[in-house]
């Protein structure tokens, strides 16, 4: 073999090794945060009534916690477990609704952002939704909210839990089509 070819082969091997090393970075999916630190939510996350003076509805507040939980696979799968543990299905029936409203569609009476869902769980809502503020630690409410949001497909595919540990009547979240929440104005809260 000529020395020129040998040098070329060595260069190719180096490039291949370099590319393989870069691919290793993809192995790091996410770090499990076993003890997530959350800031308490300040203010009202969602307007509770469709009635308000003037033209402008108060803008829903955003929280620094929300984004982290929304995209975190561990948080969403923990939310899935808690959804069963705290018997959310007792009223919301695996997300399909029953005594309480369905959670897997695009209709959100009290807003579909994770902050608004967190507020609905923490504060409770009229006609039967209890307040869980003092009964579920805040980080776990955020995990629940992330899962509830994921029920209507509002979840990055890579973060969606594929299926629960038990037999389920609903398709796995990876197969739920995305249904972005409708703008608050198009749905009357009194519906």
């Amino acid at each position: 073999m000529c020395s020129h070819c040998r040098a070329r082969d060595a260069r190719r091997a180096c490039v291949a090794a370099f590319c393989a090393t870069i691919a290793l970075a993809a192995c790091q999916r996410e770090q499990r945060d076993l003890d997530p630190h959350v800031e308490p939510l300040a203010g009202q996350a969602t307007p509770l009534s469709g009635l308000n003076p003037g033209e402008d509805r108060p803008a829903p507040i955003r929280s620094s916690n929300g984004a982290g939980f929304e995209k975190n696979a561990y948080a969403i799968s923990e939310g899935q477990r808690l959804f069963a543990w705290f018997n959310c299905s007792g009223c919301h029936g695996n997300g399909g609704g029953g005594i309480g409203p369905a959670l897997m569609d695009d209709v959100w009476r009290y807003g579909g952002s994770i902050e608004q869902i967190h507020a609905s769980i923490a504060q409770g809502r009229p006609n039967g939704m209890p307040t869980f503020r003092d009964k579920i630690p805040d980080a776990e409410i955020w995990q629940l909210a992330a899962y509830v949001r994921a029920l209507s497909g509002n979840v990055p595919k890579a973060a969606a839990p594929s299926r629960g540990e038990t037999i389920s009547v609903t398709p796995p979240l990876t197969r739920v089509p995305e249904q972005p929440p409708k703008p608050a104005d198009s749905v009357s809260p009194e519906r």
Partner: protein
Amino acid sequence: MRPAPWIAVVALPLAGCAGVQSALDPAGDEAATIGDIWHLMLGVCGFMFALTMLFLAWAIVRGRRAREADAEARHEPALSLALHGWIALVVAGLAVLAIASFLVDRRLLAPATDVLRVRVTGMQWWWRVEYPSDDPGRTLVTANELHLPVDRTSEIELRTEDVIHSLWIPNLAGKLDLVPGRVNTLRVTPRRIGGFRGQCAEFCGLDHAWMALDVRVESADAFEAWRQRHLAPAKPPLSAGEREGAQLFVQKPCVMCHAIRGSDAAASTGPDLTHFASRATLGAGARPLTREALAMWLADPNRIKPGVHMPAVPMTAAERDRLVDYLMSLE
């Protein structure tokens, strides 16, 4: 004659054969049966191993000599005899092992009469232990401790509510899996009074290694006394601190997962705490149960058992003290 120091060094690993979690120190019929076949296998395989090594050494020595001597056309009747003997030995050894394991299997699965029914449910990462009764009000529920009467066969129903676990109490029986959607039955007949350690033997998630079961084998009378004591509802809080702790327990998120019979707490996703203070360990064997360990656990369970499903519940140090007062009074 003084024993040479090397004997002590060689014998040191043998210390691992005894203890509260050892299949080589059987304390029950099933473990003894498995121990017998274990020793038989060790004997047969050890003998064959020694023989193989002996022949190998011989072959090496012979090979050196053969290179020097003229190896041409040497007929050795002794060698061919040894070869035939070897084949016979392998067949006989395997036959002995196959028949022995068949007989042991039959013995382990033989039907038993007058059994004590126990139900063990594997959870991530603890054990729910129930003693069912025909009267539903007298079904005893506890967690992470398994009390068994000596000299009586107990039939343990194994279930799981999440993933596959495996129950292994080496001193009493072999391991058996807990599989979602089915019920497996493990039979144990303890013959020696004492405390043993059970452990999950099938990887079941982050805290698999922290999933231990405290097993107590007691005399029939002691077992019955334990059962009667634990069927009773929890002791009502007496001191002011305990009363405050009891109130905190039902106000705080504790009540969402745990049950204390005799109080308003009746959830079943976490361990039943009715007679919590009578247990030896905390968090399925994560720590011996003491006031200090419990206070640390309540402050942040993740620090003691990383990944545990119990969250840190926000409360003041004073509130935590009252809660510890109450929980440690639940004997």
